[in-house]
């Protein structure tokens, strides 16, 4: 492993920033998120940012192509994407797993989303092994390994040793970035790693998807849905939610085709062209959100579309809590 004194973190990041943009967790005007690194920035290292890293790969708004409509002619032009390599720092294992979930959707064997794949290709991800869990964290219950970041997305694992960081490159791409600041790093074998903090919130999830497959019409959905606001807080902050909408932005003859985030909690979602709304109310919408995360996605990809980051538990203004829901389902005799 390669060791960096914490006091040298700023030098280290600056050195890397000479080669490519570096993105770090920090507070921007009162909202914690991943943002471009600047010298002497205060980094957020003892918790997750409110805004997950998914927007780096799936931006909330992204232009897909330009078009020009002249009379009967339509001209289409690709976006001039000048994307250069970048490094994304301190992504916790839950959020790394979130990126793996997105990969399943946007880089599946059936279809690869070019814009998404490009961003994944140019981004080296430094995972941060958990150095302090919150009361709302339940990643271990959702299939996230607290010891090892999912190597399908992480390129380097970072261990917090107190006064030092230890880096472990998981692949060549990771090694290459580390070599950019080799002079600040020292090699050390047999690094003693601190224990991963215990998760306070532990759920039973074995057999959950099967159990849910019979709940579609069960009374369990009636109980707490009434209080949902139908806002985008849970899905927009969630590291795995990936629904989007395609829009046109028109200015005279010129147009932009945009992809923007969408949320199954909005009442415009699933609204059909003729005005019919098959998903009529809060209950139907929350049922979709929970079942997509805990059953449908699992059936397709053998992993949950919830990584237990706890963002929705603490940020939902009405405290609609997916972890409580899981506990309730697992408690109930086969519904």
């Amino acid at each position: 492993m390669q060791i960096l004194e914490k006091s040298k973190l700023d030098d280290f990041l600056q050195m890397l920033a000479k080669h490519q943009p570096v993105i770090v967790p920090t507070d921007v005007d009162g909202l914690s998120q991943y943002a471009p690194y600047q010298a002497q920035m205060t980094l957020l290292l003892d918790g997750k940012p409110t805004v997950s890293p998914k927007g780096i790969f799936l931006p909330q708004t992204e232009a897909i192509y330009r078009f020009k409509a002249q009379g009967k002619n339509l001209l289409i032009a690709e976006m001039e994407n000048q994307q250069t390599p970048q490094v994304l720092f301190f992504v916790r294992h839950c959020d790394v797993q979130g990126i793996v979930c997105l990969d399943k959707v946007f880089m599946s064997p059936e279809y690869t989303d070019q814009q998404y794949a490009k961003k994944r290709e140019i981004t080296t991800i430094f995972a941060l092994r958990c150095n302090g869990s919150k009361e709302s964290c339940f990643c271990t219950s959702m299939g996230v390994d607290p010891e090892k970041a999912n190597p399908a997305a992480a390129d380097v694992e970072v261990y917090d040793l107190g006064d030092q960081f230890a880096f472990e490159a998981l692949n060549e791409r990771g090694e290459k970035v580390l070599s950019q600041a080799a002079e600040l790093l020292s090699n050390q074998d047999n690094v003693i790693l601190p224990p991963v903090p215990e998760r306070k919130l532990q759920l039973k999830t074995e057999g959950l998807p099967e159990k849910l497959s019979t709940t579609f019409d069960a009374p369990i959905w009636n109980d707490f849905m009434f209080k949902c606001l139908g806002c985008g807080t849970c899905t927009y902050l969630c590291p795995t939610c990936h629904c989007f909408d395609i829009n046109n932005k028109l200015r005279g003859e010129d147009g932009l085709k945009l992809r923007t985030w969408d949320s199954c909690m909005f009442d415009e979602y699933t609204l059909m062209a003729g005005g019919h709304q098959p998903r009529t109310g809060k209950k139907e919408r929350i049922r979709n959100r929970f079942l997509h995360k805990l059953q449908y996605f699992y059936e397709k990809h053998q992993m949950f579309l919830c990584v237990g980051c706890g963002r929705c538990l603490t940020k939902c203004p009405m405290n609609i809590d997916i972890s409580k829901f899981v506990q309730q389902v697992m408690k109930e005799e086969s519904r």
Partner: protein
Amino acid sequence: MNQEAIQTKMRQRAKELLNSGAVTMVLGWEAGTFWYQSTPILIRQAEDADKLVWNDFCQNNLSKYLLDFRFTNEKIALFLKGCDSRAFNRLLQDKQIEREKTYIIGIPCEGMKDHRLAQSKNEGDDLPLAKICQSCRYPNPVIYDELLTEEVTPRQKIVDFSDVEAIEQMSADERYEFWQKEHTKCIRCYACRNVCPACNCRKCIFDQATSGWNSKDVNASENQFYAMTRAIHIAGRCIECGQCEYVCPANIPIMLMNKKLIKDIDLLFGDYDAGLSIEGQPPLGHFEKDDPEEFM
């Protein structure tokens, strides 16, 4: 009366009302996942009434939930704090709800605690009142069928506009930069709109993406268009419950804009506090022939 005594009385009244058949359901708050969260609950069975809580975090304004039951025959009892009761009046004035279908149990309110700060504290630690509650002028319900306790003394007598004045004193460029920064953070989740008791249009313009009025792209300019439209649409109708700011995941000081509008309305139309009573007309909800504005 202390919180626990109020809570006991709450549960008791809920039970009585359900058992007697006076109401078909009760809206209140129950304990949330963490100690700094309380959350709305809907109770139909008297035995569930013991889930009701009254503590420092019963922020959620229950009045707006009545809209969901507009087209039912439910008779609903609900607990309302001072601000919530102004919301109730607001909805009555907009003819969105029927007074006869409700039973209001008013709770004179000592103020809720700052739930954001609480997340970095431990249970039992001293916490300041939520910002909105610090400046509350109407902690006592203004409409009710019964009150749970004696009325409390308002914490403020007049609106404290000092935060608005600080913004007014900025140069136009500074002000622009201030709001630009704030609105860049907005993720357009619409929680602020959905929670607002003054927002009750059947179809919000922001739910009509194909209309061309607004675009779904999230950037400072579209976000600003959203924020200002929302603020203007509730001008003269904001009842200062602060729910918008409470729910905003991006910590945007939404009330600052609402208060600016309240200040301007006071200045232009004379002092007006929305939702205090259903008598009279809201300043922007009617017109008079001798209006100084020519086009009226």
